[in-house]
Structure formats: structure tokens, C-alpha cells
């Protein structure tokens, strides 16, 4: 009767050990692939948010964020959609609301957003390694618009600066190998760094960021 795959043989079939209690909603499916279409299979699981407490410890703050949808989540991207330096989340689900946009209302802290303009390197500086020095803290981030699953991140790097509104040093290691060290930068803004010359400009949202190429 019942057909189900085995740890050692995905195509093996065999019978159930007991009758299911139908009143309870128990079931045996004679085809394991149909479980998901007739019953719960990892159903109503809440998408989770874990706050990094430092020292490789995390705390589940899913409920406090309100982003703990129990729909069937599939992909998520994070970006600063409002241009205020706080990272929002856009979530895709196959059930329970297909597209959810969670705006960030954590207490505001300082930030620095960095875009790159490559010349010797590729145009967006993809693959660059950026290091922010804040007193005795060093934050290392890489510019890869990663996929993670059915999605793509945007091509900028976001640094949370906590209570520091300036950055002691920003080190950019470009894909080409060029290294720039920029000191004493104001935070709370989105900047573009040029590989040619290592100069910085502040992005004015709504105004085109020049490509640096011959337009």
C-alpha cells in the first residue's frame, strides 16, 4: 500500500505500521510526494530574525520584529529602500502573502553606505573588500550582490556604526588589487568611492550617480 522512500533507497516501498487516527488528522500517503499537497509539511513555520549579540551568540527576536510571518517563505533581500540608512526586508512567500515589505523601525543608529565606481576594476567594484575602523572595532564587508535563494542583493555595502557618527578609517581593497585608505569620514550618508584617484562623493538620492565612463 503505502509508498515511501527509504534512507538507503529512495524508490523503495513498504506498508504503514499502524492505522492512522483520521480524527486527529493523521495520515499515511501512498505517495510521499503528495504529503505537501494534501497535508502540512513543515507548515506554518515562522520566518525568523536573530539578533547578533556578539561573541557568536544570537537571540531570537522574531516576534518583536513582527516580521515572523508563518507563511511559506522562500526568499528575502535586504536594502535601505527609504534612504535613511536602515535596512528593510523584502520577503517572497509561496503561501501566506506573496510579497512582504518590512520597514525597519529599530531605534536609529549611525550608518555608512558605500557604492563603488571601478575603473581598472569592474564598474561596480563587485568583489571589493571594505574595512571600517571605529576605534578598536574593525568591520569587514565584501561587495557581492549575493543570491542566497531566488534573489539578488543590491550592489552597495552597508555598515552599522552604532553610536559613532564618524569613521576613523575606511579601507577599500578593490578587485584590481588597488587599496585606498580614507580617514575621518562622516557617517550617516551614502558615498561613492572612485577607484581612479580614491576620491569620495556623497550620493544625493534622486540625482544620478555618474558612471565615470564617457556618457
Amino acid at each position, binding site marked *: 500500500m503505502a509508498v515511501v522512500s527509504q534512507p538507503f533507497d529512495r524508490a523503495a516501498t513498504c506498508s504503514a505500521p499502524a492505522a492512522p487516527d483520521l480524527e486527529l488528522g493523521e495520515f499515511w500517503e501512498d505517495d510521499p510526494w503528495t504529503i505537501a499537497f494534501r497535508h*502540512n509539511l513543515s507548515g506554518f513555520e515562522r520566518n525568523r530574525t536573530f539578533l547578533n549579540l556578539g561573541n557568536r*551568540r544570537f537571540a531570537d527576536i522574531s516576534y*518583536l520584529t513582527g516580521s515572523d510571518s508563518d507563511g511559506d517563505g522562500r526568499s528575502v533581500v535586504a536594502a535601505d529602500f527609504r534612504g535613511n540608512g536602515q535596512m528593510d526586508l523584502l520577503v517572497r512567500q509561496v503561501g501566506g502573502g506573496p510579497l512582504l515589505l518590512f520597514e525597519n523601525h529599530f531605534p536609529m543608529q549611525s550608518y555608512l553606505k558605500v557604492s563603488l565606481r571601478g575603473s581598472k576594476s569592474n564598474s561596480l567594484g563587485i568583489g571589493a573588500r571594505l574595512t571600517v575602523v571605529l576605534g578598536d572595532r574593525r568591520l569587514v564587508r*565584501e561587495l557581492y550582490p*549575493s543570491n542566497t535563494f531566488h534573489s539578488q542583493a543590491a550592489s552597495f555595502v552597508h555598515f552599522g556604526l552604532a553610536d559613532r557618527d564618524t569613521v576613523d578609517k575606511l579601507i577599500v581593497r578593490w578587485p584590481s588589487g588597488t587599496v585606498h585608505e580614507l580617514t575621518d569620514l562622516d557617517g550617516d550618508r551614502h558615498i561613492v568611492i572612485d577607484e581612479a584617484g580614491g576620491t569620495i562623493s556623497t550620493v544625493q538620492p534622486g540625482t544620478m550617480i555618474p558612471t565615470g565612463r564617457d556618457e
Partner: protein
Amino acid sequence: MRGRVIYTVVGVVAITSCVAASLLYRGRSPVFDDSGSETQANVTIESSLYLPDDEREFLWECEHHGNVLSEYGWRAISKAIQQRQGDELVKTLAADFRGSVTEPHAETRFENDFISLHRSVGTTHELHRFEFIEWLLTLRSAFDSAPVVQFATLSLAPTSRSDLAGDWNGRCRLRISGRHEQQPREIVVAFNFTISEPQRENLDAEGWWSNCEVTQIDSAKSQDVLMREVAAERGLLLSTLHDNWTTTTGSRVVGTGGIYLCDFNRDGYTDVLVTEPLSIRSTFLYRGLPDGRFEDATYDLRLPTLPGADHALFADIDNDGWEDLIFLGRAVFRNDSGAKFQDATRASNLTQLIIAGEIEGISGTVVDYDRDGLIDIYITRADVSQFNQGSWIDGKSGAAENNQLLRNTGNGMFEDVTKAAGAGGGQRSAFTANWLDANDDGWPDVYVIHEFGAGALLVNQQDGTFAQQQVAEHSDDFGSMGLASGDVDNDGNIDVYVSNMYSKAGNRVMDNLSSKFYDTTTMAKLRRMVAGSQLHINQGDCKFDPTENRDDIAAVGWGWGSRLVDLNNDGWLDIHATCGFMSKERAKPDG
């Protein structure tokens, strides 16, 4: 093409089945269905690996008793706590009930003006029946109106395997969530318990709960909800997107289209491409506007509707500073200065190269792996051709040339260098891959996850080739659907977070499975199948420590895409992880 992908994902059902259900089945001699019969010749089965009937029946009895406990035991207690019905709780607890609880607020895990997180663990004091009920109601009193009260059984078994009618023991998690003066609060209590045999007659009678030992209490609160859902308010109302929960056609699917970010017009506001392969119109490109609003710019930009379009990638392939748009194996659009997308499919060989891989590319990522200044592309595939064959334990699947490294040679042209570069990344189904500089040598490396087994790290040899290694000797990821990377401990090395499958049912079954039937290695692999997501901490020089598998981040559920993102701007990368496979009916048993 899409059908293949769906079936790939469905294939993972069997993983849960094999641990949470199929161990319950008898399997003295395998019987093959018609479609599989031709391919079974080279599958060897050790008959001794099958569980005896009585073991399968025991495992099923434990699961069945758990279902009974949830329906007729925990449900009534949840309601009594929610409604503050002390008299109902008195009926449940045995007259000689013995409880012990941890001291409240032993450790402050995080605290600022807005958020406070506390954990109590260890030190206990004894409580008698009425004291324990008072303690439970004290937890409840932290909330105003009726909070959500949920019990989750993490393990359950009779004290003696041969005496189902005797006492049963287990572990459980009680979660109470709700508001106090509009502020969100959550209390999570982990406890061990002893009860009478969870049969309906016993649970309907009085005094079935005899012991409760609370081992950990987590309490969390904040001044206000930390994130707010505003998709419709901001213009992202997409009624055309498929939703299994509301679909009128009744057809449920496993996968969705994607969500792809870019700044196609370089105005500093992030834009979003949403794809929906099930819709006649499959492309929705939203232009980001001030204040987080969006407007549909698809037609303005002359981007066609591309029915069935699914997996996409923004990549500046002509290196002009404007992100071009690729639909994997389908089309290439050149970004004309942010004003429009021009069909450049025929001007590039990219589509042909991806189609030549035969199986649909499921993920594309950008990199300049050879550091020549041009963006290259890596494609992963979820191959199901071997899907119903072989062993879940071995986890093999996928074709020899599953993934592709496509090197940009300029002028929109690419060459497939997978073989020469050694960049295939394992002959296994791979949902995605992440580029990172794992050894901080300035050359991009790539980590490829595998649907049915541990992933592979391809270390860039600085000469156009890669050396493949496992991220750790026994990383033991299984059921890997998603992958995020970032330096979570701020030590300067990029770590990886792998979204795997966690199953409460699977873990219960594994707890009850006698260790005498399978060897240690097999038992460990079976456990890993349901153990959940892992954070692999990079110790530098491509050495990763897989032991940082904290319970807190492992037990997410059936994990999919995730992001490492600093949500509170404190300089530490937080985690957002999506999960859930298919939901059908609340409060019913899960597969």
C-alpha cells in the same frame, strides 16, 4: 523547464519522509514502482539496514501519542493559561505534582532603551501543584489581552519502551506571545515533563501531568514592533503573484519566482525586479522612489512581459556602469543609461551557453574571478535526473557538469570555462552559490551548497583554476536550500550560514530510534538530515568551524533564503531566515 525545478524541490520531501515517516514503515524487501524498476539494478540494499517491524511500530506509537497529547492535552492547557483558568489547570496537574523552575531574569542577554532580552537557566527552586499553577499564571500576567499560547513537543517516549501504559517523558517548548500596553512581548519556556500515557481517556481525566522541570526561560520585549509590513502602502501590491493559500485554481506549487535588487537608473534608490513564472506577465520591475515608495516601471523601460520568466540576474556585462538584466537561459537586456532595457539576447552568446547546460539554471551570481575588470557569471543547477535513485544517505544527485563558470571575454561574449577552471562544484543539485574571499588572498572563492549533502568550497588558485574542498571535514549540511555569507563575528573572516531543513517530527523520531540498527556514522547522518541550519565560522585560511551550531539559529524550520544584515546598525550582522515548506491546515499533524 519549470516542472523540473518543482520536482527537485519536492524531492526534498523525501528527506523529511525518510526520517520523520519512512523509518516508521516496514521495509523487509524493497518493492519498486514501474518507473523506477529499470534503474534499480545497481542499487544494493543491505537488508540488515531495515528496521524490524516492532521498532517501526514503536516509533509510530510515540508519534501517535504525541499527536494525541497535542490535541487533547496541550491544547486545553494553552486555553487555560490564555484564559487564566486556574481551576482548569488544577484538574490537569496530579495531586502529587512536582515542579521546578529557574529563577527569573538570571542573565541579561541584551538591553537598551528599546529592547530587553533575558534568559534564565540553571538555578531552580521546587514548586508544588498550586505554586506551579500560580507560576504559570504569573507568566500569563505579563500580557494584557489574550496572548497566543503554544506548546511544541520536542521529544516524547514512554519511560520503559516495553510499557506504553506507564509514564511517558518528554521535552517541550511553551511559547507565550502578545502585547502589554501595546508593547510586544514573548516568553519561551523549555521544560522536561512526565505524564500518564497520553491517551484520550487519560487526558480527559484529571491529574495526568505529574512532573515539570523548567530548564530555560527566555523573555523578550520591546517598546514597539521593530518592523512594519507596508508592501501595499508603498506600491508593491501584486495581486497577480501566486499564493498557495488563496489560489482559486486550487493548484499548489512549491516554488516562487524571485526578487532581484538593482539600481538600474543609478539614482541611489534601490529598485526591485519581481518575477512570476506562473503569470502571463512574468516581469515586474519596480523603480524605487523617495520615502520607500515604488512604481511599476516595466513598460516605461520597454521590458517585455516574458511569460514564464523566472530566474534573473543583474550584471553589468558590458562594463558601462549600467546594470544589464539577464533571464537565465532566456534573454539578455542591455541597460541603456537607465532609460530602457534593449533586447541584446542575440548580441550575446550568454543565453546559448546557459541553455547548453541542458538543465535550467536556478541561480546566477556575479564575480570577477580572474580580476580582469569584466564581470563573470556563475550558474548553479538543481538537477533531478537521478532524483528517485540511490540513497538519501549518500546524497548523490546531479550531472557531472552541473554548474557553470562563464568567463566574460568582452563585447557581451562569454566562454564556458567550467572544466578548465575546475569550477563544477560537485556533481550534485545546487540551489545557489556565494562568492566570498574565504582566505583573504584577494581572489574570489565560491561556496556551493548541495541539496542532498555537504557543500563545497572552491578556492581560487589565482591562475584561473579552483581547488575544491569541503567547508569543514564534517560540515554535514543536508537539505541545503539557501546560503548567506558575511563576517558575523567581526574577526575579519567571512563566515557562511547554510539554510538546511529542521524538523521537529524528524528530531523526535531520531530521539526514539534505537541506536542498535544503524552504525554510528549512519545515525549521525540521519540526525543531520533534520538538525537544521548551520553557521560555519571561518577561522581564516579556509578553515571553518562547524561547531558553532547554536540551538537558537538551527531550529528555524524548513529553511530557504536568508540574509545576513545589520538590522539595528550596531555593527553586527543579524540573520533573517525564511522557512516553511507547505502549510495546509493549522493545528493538524505535520509531515
